[in-house]
């Protein structure tokens, strides 16, 4: 009975069971708790929240656990949950100038009001495997460091605001009115910048990183300076129609990158620097910086620059940056295609027969 080659309910049930067992791994090893993932794999949770476009640390950690550490799969789990949630409205623009900073650096100025705050960064680690971490239960941080990690700096002005006050950089974009919502409306090109930024913020970190890198190597470069990268807690405000004012609904951790890019102007307009913007949930500098470079590259048309490189091609970038889309479609090739393949086999066999007939006739 050849229908046996086709799958079925039993096969699916067995696969689900095997997956659950593989996820748990060796029973002799204690089970990982969601709290442990949140606390100790926090950057994985940050990435999953950003690409899953849902800010919920516990659910992010749960998704990481359920996906066995596959972060793209985890982001997908969050997206599928997010889509069932009601939409209450949209927040006021985040006021990142009032962020409670855990880290803040500028590559554009040696010093500035508030100073440079190194904060928790991999930047100056020597990338030597710390074998001390192999041993469990040993304190690996000194009391001094632990104390400093809890210290949050007061709000301080953004570098771009300081420049904008002098007219040296373009102002922030228009933030009045309802923002686009790419989770509800089908895309159209050219997309407004708010829709582009949403897509980039949800976009795959690896894809954006590679594109950002390509702009640095001459494929659509725009002379970036890391004006400022800040990471910390920022309040989210929601305007409540019934109350007539905005209320603070809680704090989120976010990383913001403001790239300062080559100046524009001439004719009637005095020269000024342009911006590229990046924002991600949690602590995600690589993502925020990549996003800022790609955002600026995608503004080529706006500034009358030639747009010939992949990172400057809006339809290409926005259509391919989403890893839930991409992962689904690449992996759908695992689904049976034997009907189509059979159609191709019929066609190729017919063509080969015709070819052989022709050969024989000659």
């Amino acid at each position, binding site marked *: 009975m*050849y229908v046996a*080659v086709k799958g079925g309910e039993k096969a699916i049930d067995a696969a689900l069971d095997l997956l659950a067992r593989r996820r748990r791994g060796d029973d002799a090893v204690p089970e990982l708790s969601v709290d442990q993932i949140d606390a100790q794999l926090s950057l994985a949770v940050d990435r999953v929240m950003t690409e899953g476009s849902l800010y919920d640390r516990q659910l992010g950690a749960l998704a990481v656990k359920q996906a066995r550490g596959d972060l793209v799969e985890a982001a*997908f789990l969050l997206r599928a949950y997010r889509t069932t949630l009601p939409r209450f409205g949209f927040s006021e623009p985040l006021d990142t100038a009032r962020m409670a900073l855990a880290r803040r650096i500028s590559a554009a100025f040696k010093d500035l009001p508030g100073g440079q705050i190194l904060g928790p960064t991999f930047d100056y680690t020597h990338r030597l495997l710390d074998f001390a971490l192999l041993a469990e239960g040993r304190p690996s941080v000194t009391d001094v460091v632990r104390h400093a990690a809890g210290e949050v700096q007061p709000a301080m002005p953004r570098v771009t605001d300081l420049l904008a006050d002098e007219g040296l950089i373009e102002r922030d974009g228009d933030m009045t009115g309802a923002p686009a919502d790419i989770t509800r409306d089908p895309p159209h090109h050219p997309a407004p910048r708010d829709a582009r930024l949403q897509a980039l913020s949800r976009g795959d970190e690896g894809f954006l990183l590679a594109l950002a890198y390509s702009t640095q190597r001459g494929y659509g470069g725009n002379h970036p300076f890391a004006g400022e990268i800040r990471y910390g807690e920022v309040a989210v405000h929601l305007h409540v129609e019934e109350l007539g004012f905005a209320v603070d609904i809680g704090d989120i951790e976010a990383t913001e990158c403001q790239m300062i890019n080559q100046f524009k102007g001439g004719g009637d307009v005095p020269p000024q620097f342009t911006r590229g913007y990046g924002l991600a949930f949690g602590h995600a500098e690589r993502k925020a910086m990549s996003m800022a470079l790609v955002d600026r590259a995608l503004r080529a048309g706006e500034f009358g620059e030639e747009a010939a490189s992949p990172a400057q091609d809006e339809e290409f970038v926005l*259509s391919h940056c989403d890893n839930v*889309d991409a992962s*689904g*479609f690449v992996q759908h090739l695992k689904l*049976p295609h034997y009907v189509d393949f059979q159609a191709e086999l*019929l066609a190729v066999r017919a063509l080969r027969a015709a070819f052989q007939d022709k050969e024989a006739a000659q």
Partner: protein
Amino acid sequence: MNDAGEPGYNFAYLDESTKRMIRRAILKAIAIPGYQVPFGSREMPLAYGWGTGGIQITAAVIGADDVLKVIDQGADDTTNAVSIRRFFARVAGVETTERTAEASIIQTRHRIPERRLSDGQILVYQVPIPEPLRFIEPRETETRKMHALVEYGAMHVKLYEDVAAHGRITTSYNYPVLVNGRYVMSPSPIPKFDNPKMDMMPALQLFGAGREKRIYAIPPYTPVKSLDFEDHPFSVERSDRPCALCGATDTFLDEIVADDRGGRIFVCSDSDRCGEQRDQVASGDGAAP
């Protein structure tokens, strides 16, 4: 009504405002046969590329009285068909069937059932790439203009390049069609063997592409013509063998590799039709193979 489905979720999973948005897109799609209506496709608990467009259409269309059949590659028991059928049994509590004749909604991937569908049935196709011009012109901004201006010359050129190289059109599946004399449309990756079934079909045909966020439709009794040339008319390739299980000679067959010495067995891809035929043969009132 909500108690028919999964606790904590709306009937048929989608929330009502999403269903309304999809329903309005479906109505426009029916009114403009073959035109791809953009819609606010939602993320589904199933990977993009695995039938999210078809699922969203089915979820927006289905009611408690519907009887649902789901096939993939023509068969009800392929894993993805099983998975989607289970999803709806769970979230909508609807009756499901493997009998083509008994279904009010049939969701399909890559096949049209062999049995002629009837007025009142709805065939929902899962579509990976809705744009028939995509491999000629990858940009949406361009293909939209080409459809608006009925600029389909490039499509004919592509088909004719086959004729020049091979003496015939070699596209064997996802073979483009012209709907009601106006829009060139992708029939989804069905074998071209199935294309003629679309023409003047009494059932309503709905097409959903979730990742690409497009819905399109063919109303019942609508002319659907496979693109061709006067000197190279559209034709279908048929297997010269009967189905090894039911003996049918008029169906699309799956080829099964029986051994590593070139042995092949051919069986119906439409599992329901094959079963019916076998039952008839067994009871003696069908044509013997």
